[in-house]
């Protein structure tokens, strides 16, 4: 006869309420794990979608995600010429925040070369960008319909396609434009600034005694064009030919002045160990604290349930019930409570995961690990009740 099940059956509503409460707690622990995994996936999303072997950035920086990096776009031609490099493309990245329908509207803009690396990995609706200017692919999460217009840097961009589940390391949805457009948005000054800077340049040149006024006026637009060039990228990514030695290519580029070639693994390390390390630690600690709280709550519940049954336990002992039956009663209830609470937590999270504003990844190994921890907590928690039960004297069953 299973005493644990019969006792639970006898006080169903109390047991179910307790399991519900614990289930909510375990659901929060599961969501912490999911958010933790989501952080990692988000942080490496663009990195993985780009699938580059090398990320060439400005020297002494850890760009382009963790730090600012500006390099001339033209360096891509030099990189393409390095033996072992199969493909190299310039990319630009920038965070954009504006207002849309009266609410803050934030996204991460990627500029890529048509036909090059780093473009949208998947188009779930519409089409990819085909024209060099004024077309944009946005993440579905931005909730802008195909054919709608989005104003960026004073120009209107038409939404031609939707990508999905592409977010930056900060969790912002990603949009894609051509590199030329992205450079214009990021680096081009507005008309007033251009006019001011040209006038300033002209007056400086006119003051130079070595130049005649005619020479100065002819040089001004040429110098302004060079100074105002927007052919700048945040990084140049490269993919190597099969069999090429990554270390050798990296070593070769690192010998150039002004550039730092980072491997995909280096970038992953920068993103996961640098940018999201604290968030990861925070979530880990929160998860740990919640598990300790769950353990304390289960212990208290099991202990209280044991206290409620002291006379029953004393009676069982007096009529010769073996200790293993009494231990089984407490242990099985504790385990059953943990398992049911776990299932409730899982169902709750599975039903609400799409409501989370940030990515939430359900990973089997995390769920299995949590299940194992819950079982250990239940066994540990039941020991408190078992210890109390073993100390009950059969004599306590006697008397009124």
């Amino acid at each position, binding site marked *: *006869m299973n*005493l644990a099940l*019969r*006792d639970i*059956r*006898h*006080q169903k509503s109390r047991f179910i309420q307790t399991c519900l409460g614990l289930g909510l707690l375990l659901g929060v622990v599961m969501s912490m794990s999911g958010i933790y995994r989501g952080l990692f996936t988000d942080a490496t999303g663009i990195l993985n979608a780009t699938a580059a072997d090398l990320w060439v950035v400005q020297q002494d920086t850890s760009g382009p995600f963790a730090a600012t990096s500006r390099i001339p776009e033209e360096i891509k031609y030099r990189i393409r010429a390095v033996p072992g490099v199969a493909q190299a493309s310039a990319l630009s990245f920038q965070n954009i925040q504006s207002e849309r329908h009266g609410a803050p509207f934030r996204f991460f803009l990627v500029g890529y070369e048509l036909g090059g690396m780093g473009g949208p990995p998947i188009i779930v609706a519409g089409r990819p960008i085909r024209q060099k200017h004024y077309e944009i692919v946005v993440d579905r999460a931005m909730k802008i319909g195909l054919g709608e217009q989005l104003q960026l840097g004073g120009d209107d961009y038409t939404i031609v396609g939707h990508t999905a589940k592409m977010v930056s390391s900060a969790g912002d949805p990603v949009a894609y434009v051509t590199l030329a457009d992205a450079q214009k948005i990021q680096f081009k000054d507005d008309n007033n600034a251009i006019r001011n800077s040209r006038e300033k340049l002209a007056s400086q040149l006119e003051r130079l005694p070595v130049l005649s006024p005619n020479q100065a006026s002819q040089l001004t637009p040429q110098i302004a064009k060079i100074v105002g060039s927007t052919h700048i990228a945040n990084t140049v990514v490269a993919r190597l030919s099969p069999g090429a030695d990554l270390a050798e290519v990296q070593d070769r580029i690192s010998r150039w002045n002004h550039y730092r070639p980072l491997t995909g693994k280096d970038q992953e390390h920068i993103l996961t160990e640098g940018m999201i390390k604290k968030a990861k630690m925070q979530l880990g600690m929160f998860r740990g604290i919640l598990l300790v709280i769950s353990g304390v709550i289960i212990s208290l519940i099991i202990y209280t349930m044991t206290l409620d049954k002291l*006379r*029953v336990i004393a*009676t*069982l*002992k*007096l*009529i*010769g*019930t*073996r200790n293993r*039956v009494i231990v089984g009663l407490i242990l099985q209830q504790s385990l059953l409570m943990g398992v049911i609470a776990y299932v409730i937590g899982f169902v709750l999270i599975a039903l609400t995961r799409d409501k989370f504003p940030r990515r939430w990844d359900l990973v089997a190994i995390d769920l299995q690990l949590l299940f194992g921890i819950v079982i250990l907590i239940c066994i540990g928690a039941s020991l408190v009740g078992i210890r109390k039960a073993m100390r009950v*004297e*059969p*004599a306590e*069953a*006697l*008397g*009124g």
Partner: protein
Amino acid sequence: MYAVQIENLTKIYGSGHTEVVALADATFDVAPGELVGILGPSGSGKTTLLTTIGLVTEPTRGRVVLDGEVIAEDGWPPGLDLKRIRREKLGFIFQAHNLIPFLSAVENVMIALENNGFGAKEARTRSIELLESLGLGHRLNHYPALLSGGESQRTAIARALANQPRVILADEPTAALDTENGKNVMGLLKKLAVENNSAILVVTHDQRMVEGFDRIFTFSDGRIVNETRNNV
């Protein structure tokens, strides 16, 4: 052979000036089929006697023989399996019947049988027969909270009898019952003692029930001060 034999049974709590003699040199025998009453005021040693015979309290001195097996000789013999003896040779009936609240009447009886190695099916069959014989056939699946005082006590008696013990120890079994139910329970115990050839020792304050006993021991300050026999 006697069902219970006790010689100079003594239980002392504490030592030195905190010493309390709860039971002093109690000596008597109880034959199978005999219904014995243990009477006396509170603190006279009645319950100590019961718990000592019931292997709940270890005696300080003296000898207890239960169905031919020595269970105490100046304390418990080393290696004595208390639970086995309680399961096989003893049945307990309590003042508050002590039924397990989350088990039905039939399950309350079954657990005593399962403790003794019976399979669930056989335990169920025997429990139903036993409860039916005690007039509880219509209450088999009722929980203790839904049973009357008399029905609860009869269920507790069924549990005590389940393993056909040689000795049944009852602690104030009629205290919580009205006179009619109390007399019914006493009548039932007398009938069962004879039918099962079990010795039944009943601790009671209840003077209304004394005429039902075959023999009565009266205790005071831990000693037997009187022994009377009823010629019923």
